[in-house]
């Protein structure tokens, strides 16, 4: 049974006892305020914040029918305590949780400070302690701490007895604001009783109230219920859908475990099929097709040919080049600039922790997420090149792309690693990261993304490890890699499915599928090991987290313009990431060629361009079909549609045209332009979804708009990390065999 609070705005006298009582009980400091805007009367503070869980909103509404011609309506604004709250669904560590009594409470000990709850709440309730070096989330918890207080030892020197205990418990079970309310505007009780009470009041005073109990149906029902004499829109209450927000993300997240099993099996099947096809083709050609990672020879081979370590297989095709370190001077002007940017990035990172996130960033309760999250989402999308390439090369046996495999993986590894670093800076309480391992929420996209990205980084690392092994001749480790990486894949995938499903059947299914794949694709005696399990894991995990990044925004149908918001977002995100990832690889390779004055491997790039074309096409078709199906095409022409059109036309249609034929794709100019526009389109998409396409109302009651432009430190860290990625990529290819040797 949920306990709720009924707020009758017709009774409230605006005395603000609730505001101060809340501060007194919760030990919240005062805010420094100034005279509010004239429409706000005496309203102060203007917004909810980490220092104010309750704000009495003042409204002065002209109304000739009201005594004095003015309706002075006071509205206590606070957490709505949804029955099925978006913030709880969002929280990756169950820090935000529903209590037995219906309150939405917060456990600071678990919180990692991701602020997804702030982004998810349709009312702008959770706020962050921007002044603190350990900025926790703050919000009303219906005084959950009061009900557990013990009976005082004595009153006026006389011991209290059990009879006192009962009345004491009753008093303490109410939130302090309700208990201290002088006017009777607040009433605490069970949700059902209060709904009846509200209906009784509406019935007994016909014409007094508008025919709407705000909170009865909003967001699937809330435990803060309002009665009003004026329409709620006039009081600044947002129109909120009646469907609980977590429904959408629950569907998306619920499909993750079966998707893992399914995608794994599919990829395995595809590999088997392509392997077979390759074998048949090889047999026809009379040669043995060997696709390899940089493979150490089998022990036997190694024993006999111990001098030539890691020598490439003897039977080579032209599409199966060697790799070699690039020899180029490190301290070029460009690299010096990159180093300087990295230096500033490093300093910004340091200052972020010394001075606090609130001090160093321009993030706010309105813009709880800013540049860093955009940066993360954009980079994860464009870093999709790694999994797409690995998948193409290994699973779909696109050996023609082999030569760009290593650079794709290195780029991916660096990108993902630095996304993780940005997250470190962005999280309010990154040292609570272990909470992600100790709590598993039901349907949190953030939890899924966190685990998925984390595991994927390890997979990327494993994918890349053979390169340093090869470079530095670490045979023993290479052996271990060969032996254990498939095992790791099975374990990681099973763990992942367990965390997401809590269902041993799904875990078993995952273990069986991936176990049998590992067994089936095991490196047999005399065979060169193929990192197929890593590739399958990489593609599976990427599919999951790329799509889950879309799921993150499923909780925000009331904020995100429906030109972007759709239950299909997870799929769109995945499809667009493939397009962006492959297109970015084209750009990276072009940049490499240009930077080191190497030959442009136009054939491979054209092939990547083709993949980009098709994935972009599917993405755009799916997206437009979805828009049409939902009847949202009419939103084009409305607000934000410039952004949408830029994305679809310049970042979708135009690259599709530029990449449409082999002829066009084989021209480096059009290929580069097409790839660039495709990447830009997806980048813009991510920016739109995260922020630009949103109607951010800010902290309740949204009476003061807040603007955002990233601070110099936010830019510092983001730009510094981009610089680091480029710099380290350059460093990597200089020292390790990542790129094929330049054919002269």
């Amino acid at each position, binding site marked *: 049974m949920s306990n709720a609070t009924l707020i009758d705005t017709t009774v409230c*006298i605006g005395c*603000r006892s609730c505001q101060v009582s809340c501060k007194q009980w919760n030990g919240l400091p*005062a805010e420094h305020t100034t*005279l509010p805007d*004239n429409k706000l*009367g005496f309203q102060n503070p203007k917004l909810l914040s980490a220092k104010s869980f309750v704000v009495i909103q003042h409204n002065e509404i002209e109304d000739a029918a009201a005594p004095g011609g003015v309706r002075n309506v006071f509205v206590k604004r606070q957490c709505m305590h949804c029955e099925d709250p978006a913030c709880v669904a969002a929280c990756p560590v169950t820090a935000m949780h529903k209590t037995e009594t219906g309150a939405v409470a917060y456990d600071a000990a678990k919180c990692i400070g991701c602020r997804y709850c702030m982004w998810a709440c349709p009312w702008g309730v959770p706020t962050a302690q921007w002044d603190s070096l350990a900025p926790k989330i703050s919000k009303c918890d219906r005084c959950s701490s009061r009900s557990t207080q013990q009976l005082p030892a004595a009153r006026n020197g006389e011991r209290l007895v059990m009879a006192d205990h009962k009345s004491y418990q009753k008093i303490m079970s109410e939130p302090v604001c309700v208990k201290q309310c002088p006017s009777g505007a607040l009433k605490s009780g069970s949700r059902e009783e209060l709904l009846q009470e509200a209906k009784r009041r509406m019935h007994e005073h016909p014409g007094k109230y508008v025919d709407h109990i705000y909170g009865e149906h909003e967001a699937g029902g809330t435990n803060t219920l309002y009665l009003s004499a004026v329409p709620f829109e006039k009081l600044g209450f947002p129109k909120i859908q009646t469907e609980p927000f977590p429904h959408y993300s629950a569907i998306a997240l619920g499909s993750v475990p079966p998707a893992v099993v399914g995608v794994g099996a599919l990829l395995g099947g595809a590999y088997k099929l392509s392997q077979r096809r390759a074998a048949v083709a090889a047999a026809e050609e009379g040669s043995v097709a060997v696709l390899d990672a940089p493979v150490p020879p089998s022990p036997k081979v190694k024993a006999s040919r111990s001098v030539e370590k890691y020598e490439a297989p003897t039977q080579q095709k032209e599409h199966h080049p060697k790799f070699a370190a690039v020899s180029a001077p490190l301290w070029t002007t460009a690299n010096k600039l990159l180093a300087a940017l990295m230096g500033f990035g490093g300093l910004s990172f340091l200052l972020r922790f*010394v001075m606090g996130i609130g001090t160093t960033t321009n993030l706010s309760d309105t813009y709880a997420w800013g540049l860093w999250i955009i940066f993360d989402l954009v980079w994860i999308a464009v870093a999709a090149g790694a999994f797409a390439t690995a998948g193409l090369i290994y699973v779909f046996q696109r050996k023609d792309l082999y030569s760009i495999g290593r650079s794709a993986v290195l780029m991916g590894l660096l990108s993902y690693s630095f996304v993780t670093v940005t997250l470190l800076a962005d999280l309010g309480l990154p040292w609570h990261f272990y909470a992600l391992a100790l709590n598993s929420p039901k349907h949190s996209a953030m939890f899924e993304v966190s685990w998925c990205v984390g595991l994927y980084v390890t997979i990327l690392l494993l994918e890349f490890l053979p390169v340093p092994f090869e470079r530095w001749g670490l045979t023993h480790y290479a052996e271990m890699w060969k032996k254990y990486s498939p095992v790791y894949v099975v374990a990681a995938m099973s763990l992942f499915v367990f965390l997401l499903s809590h269902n041993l059947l799904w875990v078993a299914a995952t273990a069986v599928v991936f176990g049998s794949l590992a067994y089936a694709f095991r490196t047999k005696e005399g065979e060169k090991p193929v990192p197929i399990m890593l590739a399958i894991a990489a593609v599976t995990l990427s599919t999951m987290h790329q799509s889950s990044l879309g799921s993150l925004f499923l909780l925000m149908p009331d904020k995100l313009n429906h030109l972007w918001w759709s239950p299909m977002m997870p799929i769109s995100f995945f499809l667009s990431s493939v397009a962006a990832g492959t297109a970015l690889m084209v750009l990276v390779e072009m940049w490499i060629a240009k930077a080191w004055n190497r030959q442009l491997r136009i054939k491979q790039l054209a092939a990547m361009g083709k993949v980009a074309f098709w994935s972009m096409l599917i993405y755009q078709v799916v997206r437009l079909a979805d828009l049409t199906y939902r009847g949202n095409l009419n939103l084009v022409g409305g607000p934000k549609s410039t952004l949408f059109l830029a994305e679809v036309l310049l970042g979708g249609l135009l690259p599709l045209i530029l990449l449409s034929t082999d002829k066009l794709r084989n021209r480096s100019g059009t290929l580069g332009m097409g790839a660039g526009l495709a990447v830009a389109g997806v980048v813009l998409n991510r920016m739109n979804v995260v922020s630009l396409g949103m109607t951010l109302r800010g902290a309740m009651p949204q009476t003061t708009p*807040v603007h955002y432009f990233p601070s110099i430190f936010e830019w510092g860290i983001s730009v510094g990390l981009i610089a680091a990625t480029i710099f380290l990529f350059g460093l990597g290819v200089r020292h390790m065999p990542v790129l094929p040797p330049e054919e002269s």
Partner: protein
Amino acid sequence: MTINRRQWLKRATGAGVGLAAGALGFEEPKLHASTKKEKLEGVQEFTSACNFCACGCGMICHVKDGELINLEGDPDHVINEGALCAKGAAMSATHTSDQRLKKPRYRAPGATEWTEISWEEAFEKVARKIKTTRDANWIANENIKGVDYQVNRTDAIGFLGGAQNTNEDCYLITKASRLLGTVSVEHQARLCHGPSVPSLSASFGRGAMTNHWLDMQHSKVFLIEGSNVAENHIMGMKWIKKAQEKGAIVIHVDPRFTRTSSSADIYARIRAGSDIAFLNAVINYILQHKLYDEEYVKLNTNALLHAKADFEFNDGIFSGFEDETHHYDMASWGYELDGTKKPSKAKSLDDPRTVFANLKKFYSRYTLELGSQISGIPVEQIKLIAETMAKHKPGCVVYALGATQHTYGVQQIRCYGILQLLLGNIGVPGGGVNALRGEPNVQGACDMAVLNHYLPGYLSYPNADQPTMKDWTKSNGTFRAKFFVNCMKSWFGDNATAENDFGYGMLPKRNPGKDYTIYGMMESALAGRLKMLYVIGQNPMVTNANLKVTYEGMAALEMLVVQDLWETETADFWRRPGVNPKDIKTEVLLLPAAYFMEKDGTLTGAGRLVQWRYAAVNPPGEAKTDIEILDVLFNKLRAMYKDSTDPKDLPLLKAKWDYPAKGLSEAVLREIGGTDLKTGLPVNGIADLQADGTTACGVWIYAGVFKGGKNLTKRRDNKTDPGGLGIYPGFAWTWPGNMHVLYNRASCDAKGQPRDKDRAIVWWDETQKKWAGWDTPDVPVATDGPDTPNGQRPFRMNGEGVGRLLAASYMDPDPKEKDLPRDVSYVPKDGPFPEFYEPIESPTANAMHPAVATNPCVKYPRLKTGQHPIGTREKFPYVLMTSSMAEHWCCGSVTRNSPWLNELVPEPVVEMPEKLATKLGLKHGEHARVTSARGEVIVKTVVTKRMQSLNINGEEVMSVWMPYNWGFKGLSTGPSTNLLTIDAVDPVAGTQETKACLVNIVRASDENGGSHV
């Protein structure tokens, strides 16, 4: 959001500091999180009551290891039922505030800083100065109108404050100051509800709120006029809301649309200062349309009594006016008396000689049209209000300072009295004229007589021309003389005997021609007569009207002693902005006092509920309770005089002053509550008090507070309410005699049976032959039935025993004493009926009688030296009204030191209608320069639809509002609005006209922006 706001540059300058703060940042929330869950584990609870307004809300202090952990509303308290307003909810911070004073301080003449000193030094300095001042400025005899009288007085020492104190503190202030020989004893009531006591006394016999907070739930209609109850008496609004939930109609008449208006069913915008014109139009409408309660009027008022034939009223002046002295001879305002010196009574209301006929004649001038023309309220709305009041019974009048702070405040409240007597709304549950008192213990401080013209229990203070007790009795009656004797027995103990007139001669006597009010004291200081002022918890440097005079008066003192929680504007007056401290020669002592949660004692709320507060925690630092300071000081002084034989020092040496150090407050309360000197036991009530000196009672209206030897103010029975009327007889104790609804006999018919059976409160029980009921029956003798004269005295505290439509001069003969009256009815000196006059500074002419525009009894300017200018409407075209607000309280020294409250309202403002703002070219938030004939302030502008202009006498009148709660000390500073206000006062009550004066407003240039004094 900008980087600037986050002040990163500031922080970046010291990464080390940042790191240190970082460590705190990690720890603080962690501690917080772990303590909240077990916050109240093992705490001790102490019950207390709030120290802001006079609602008297119960509070619970949670104390652990001597620390105040939490403070919230007492859920078992009958008035607030656990609730608190924003100010009350913020109260916990006052105990722990860094701003609290912790050590005594001394400021030498001309010094620029305070010096901390020890208590010993402080006591020595104060006592020594009192002694030298007293000795050097003693007036043993005084010549008044050619007669030499012994007066035993000094006018060089004044005491100020008491409404912030407990009853016990106040009682000792009263007692000590009079024993020292000063009658210059005043407290906050002078500035706020000064007019209530004389006005309500003139109508009903007692000067207090007739009903009580809980009783408001029974009302069917409220006329809230001159009160912003939703903001300033929030717990009062709680009970009004309860009535409203049951269908009661709330009428709010106010110049300003406030949070009270937002809850009203009818809101009438009235021009500030025109209330009497409106109220009289309502009363006239009720009279003309016979909407009054005829049975009630005949039975319970003086309507049928024959008024004197020579009573007249012409052109704004009543008969008996003496032009030169601004004074009335009241002889013609009385009744035609019969052979027994009792008023003669008519058979019918139609008798043209009756008070009622006079009333109708007087009122007939107040047509709806005239009322509307003067007040700005539309005719239809006046009519609607009159009809609504007449139709719905019982109806309750709620007022506060909007009614009192005028030069005719007493008369405005008289309107309420007349209205409610006509409607039969006095003495009944849900009725009444409810004076919402503003300070926590302003009622108690009045009861204890921290006012120059009273002795405890509203006994008139003896004047020089009343040299003996008998002389005093001649003008006050034998009924009250008895209580005087009891007071003297408490003050002088065995040294008060019948032979020595019970010590009457030892009391200092007032000079009736002198002004001992707070304004008089300041003017006396300016004239060099008042040398030393002792201020206890009052802050005249913010709250006095026309502050400039106060500034100058303070600087003229030789010594100022301030006993307070904070460094107030008064304590720091010598270094206010714009003065050079070196030029100010006043010695100042600042003594750190204890706040309410740090001390024992009682307070009396507006509903006369006397409740005990327990000391929950120790005062911070070296701060001491007021009562301890007073006790130590008095004993020290007495020791200084111990060998004196000078008759002037007799009162000090003969006084009974032997209080224990432990349980001091309770011992004082025992003295207040009365003792049977034969048995040594507490008396059980007023009826036990004797005139022969065998009983002693410090404050007769509190007799019985220790009934049965128990401190009844500690009672907490919130369950027993036998009549269901919200009386709770077992919860604390209400004066007089635990009576909750005054004049409740008037709820019965002639036979003593309840007129409204559904709301019976008292009745004559024929079987038991006594008055009975849910409340203490308000009858002279409980066994005197309706068939006896005592059974027909519903307003027994009036000489004539009935409610007074005409405040007639009347002495009730004492059947036992030939030449002495039994009781004397009180008459306000500015008129027996309430006539409309304009404020001293008015935007318009007096439409009733242009030649007598303002109250003819007002003397203003009082000072001939230019400090009392009167602004003209040509130079100052706008009406300024001032008040307190929900979030800040009075002088603001408590609330402006509370960050939580400063957050709610951070700065003072001037609130104006959009039309005026447009005219002045002012936008919301811009600085306005507000000037009056007396001063100037610059504050931010609030432009709001809640303010509107009015059409008055055919012209548009614009009004503005400013809160008066700011000053130059505390965490939130701002200019004091009282620099602008006028200190013209009500001629009866001495209360200033802060509700209406004239100002001009211009846009302040930006470089002058920011608030300054």
